């Protein structure tokens, strides 16, 4: 038994020591034949469209089994989550040991809601559970579509169905973020056919998934959107946060163009679905 444990430990260490990049063929090159996207008038690829990820990473970025929801006694299979494979390069998020404990606590308290004090308002619970804006990169792999609106101005809009969150991508923008925000300070530029978005200034309260994966106020995300076919964008995000992880790490997966006739972004204004949970306790009848 000891020998087995040692072997497992070595395997884990081996994973952790792998470089964050370079061990896999770039996904966009490996999974798709060479592709040249249609151009906008400025010569850059046209990324317009309604896109959606079909990974299950909103439940867990890493490998995960099918799982019951937090209240199977009332939600049954409706509340359950699907199994899925890790989208993290190398499989594991390189947490610092002390940070891993916080992730576990996040998971245990993921459906805890306490808005009785402004100061501890955001202390516990998954922001998704409370219909808060998901931040980046989580917005990209939630089980909802988003629309990219790319025109001829210096901005690209990403409009998400979940809680109608939006991101304004400022192309070739120099200024630093003025104040933290839920969807971050998004500065874009082109590297060949790849739209690169540098995201800073995200509120530290956002999570990456329902498993409690999280970051600090030093989060820095660099996203890469590369056309891979008329129907696919390859998505990569490099995630850096020296307070929480031992090194930068990367996720990647394809985005799929929604092809249904006349499909459009609909509303998921989820605030009304959370009001009883958040505020019902303070109604008149509740205190009688």
């Amino acid at each position, binding site marked *: 038994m000891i020998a087995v444990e040692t072997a497992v430990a070595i395997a884990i260490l081996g994973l952790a020591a792998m470089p964050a990049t370079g061990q896999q063929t770039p996904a966009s090159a490996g999974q798709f034949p060479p592709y040249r996207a249609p151009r906008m008038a400025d010569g850059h690829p046209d990324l317009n469209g309604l896109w959606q990820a079909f990974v299950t990473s909103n439940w867990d970025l890493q490998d995960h089994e099918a799982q019951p929801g937090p209240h199977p006694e009332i939600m049954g299979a409706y509340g359950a989550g699907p199994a899925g494979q890790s989208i993290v390069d190398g499989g594991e998020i390189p947490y610092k040991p002390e940070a891993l404990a916080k992730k576990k606590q996040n998971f245990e308290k993921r459906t805890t809601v306490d808005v009785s004090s402004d100061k501890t308002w955001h202390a516990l619970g998954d922001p998704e559970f409370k219909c808060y804006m998901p931040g980046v990169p989580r917005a990209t792999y939630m089980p909802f579509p988003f629309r990219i609106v790319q025109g001829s101005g210096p901005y690209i809009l990403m409009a998400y169905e979940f809680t109608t969150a939006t991101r304004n991508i400022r192309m070739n923008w120099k200024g630093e973020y003025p104040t933290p925000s839920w969807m971050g300070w998004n500065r874009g530029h082109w590297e060949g056919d790849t739209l690169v978005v540098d995201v800073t200034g995200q509120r530290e309260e956002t999570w990456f998934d329902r498993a409690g994966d999280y970051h600090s106020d030093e989060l820095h995300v660099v996203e890469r959107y590369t056309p891979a076919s008329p129907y696919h964008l390859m998505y990569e995000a490099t995630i850096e946060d020296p307070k929480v992880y031992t090194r930068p790490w990367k996720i990647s997966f394809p985005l799929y163009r929604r092809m249904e006739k006349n499909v459009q972004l609909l509303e998921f204004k989820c605030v009304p679905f959370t009001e009883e949970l958040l505020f*019902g306790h303070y109604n008149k009848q509740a205190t009688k």
Partner: protein
Amino acid sequence: MNHRLLTSIGIAVVSLSTAAGQVPKTTAQAPAKVVAKATAAGKKPGAFRTPWGDPDLQGVWNDATSTPLQRPGGVGSKDVLTDEEAEDFQKTLAFDLTRDRRDGGPEVDVNRAYNDHWMDARRLKITADRRTSLIVDPPDGRIPPRVPLPPERDKVRAERAAANDRFNAGLPQHYTDFSLPVRCIIRTDSPPYLPTIYNNDFQIYQSPGYVVIAPEMIHSARIIPVDGRPHLGKNLQQWLGDSRGHWEGDMLVVETTNFRDYPGVIFQGGNRETYKITERFVRIDATTINYEFTIDDPKTWTKPWTARIPWSRIDPNEQMYEYACHEDNYDLVHFLTGARSREQRGETK
């Protein structure tokens, strides 16, 4: 211009910010000449075009103005102010609202300071054409009289009014007593767009086949297909409705249907089955879009009515900020817990 008139305009200005769901007073007035010329079609047709040939509305725009939606009662049939009257009006409004006044006692003083903190300074200017109302039709500048409403709609209005009264009295009973904006469900993201106390910026994005309008007042994007597709099926309703646009020359014309069946969603409590809103956007020069909306609902008003609001381009370096309304909606808990405390102390109003 006498000061009573100014005060009444000032009140009308303030009431704009709570216009949703409130019933306007209507007064019969002598019709005045129509101030508004037909919507300007642009001096040089085709002057502002995207590379793919659509009229170009892209940019960040601001619709703040102190001109009230409806012509104030005291102004009679006067539709346009003289330069002097306009100057006087703006000065008086600025004086009424400034935090630097000290009359009225500490509570009023604190309220003024609070409002001043939020106030978009552009709210102190009336429209460049010095109109006395944003409404340009009917000619009296006022929302037309209502038709008699069936009892069930009167009941919904009365319930909404009672909830507003509880809120205003500091005794909300339930989170649904608050308006949709206070609950962070819809704010200025739903048509018609009207100026309010702050966050009057709108960013317009375009791509081939789409115009998208994102307001600063809440994080949502109103995505308007301009590719000729049909509306959503009638059983799929949305808080912002379902918008479809088309181009008439340089003008974007948008029609919106499929609103959710919930009090406060449709402007001024219109009737969901018959309410029709048509918006028109036309860029008249490098720095101005004329925005017009027409509301037609024969089961609510005796005739259609139209308002026009100029949108001014703002310096692109004056960035829009994310407005996380629900995420930090501390107010809602404060209002409710405050009401519970007051009840425990036996306060009833």
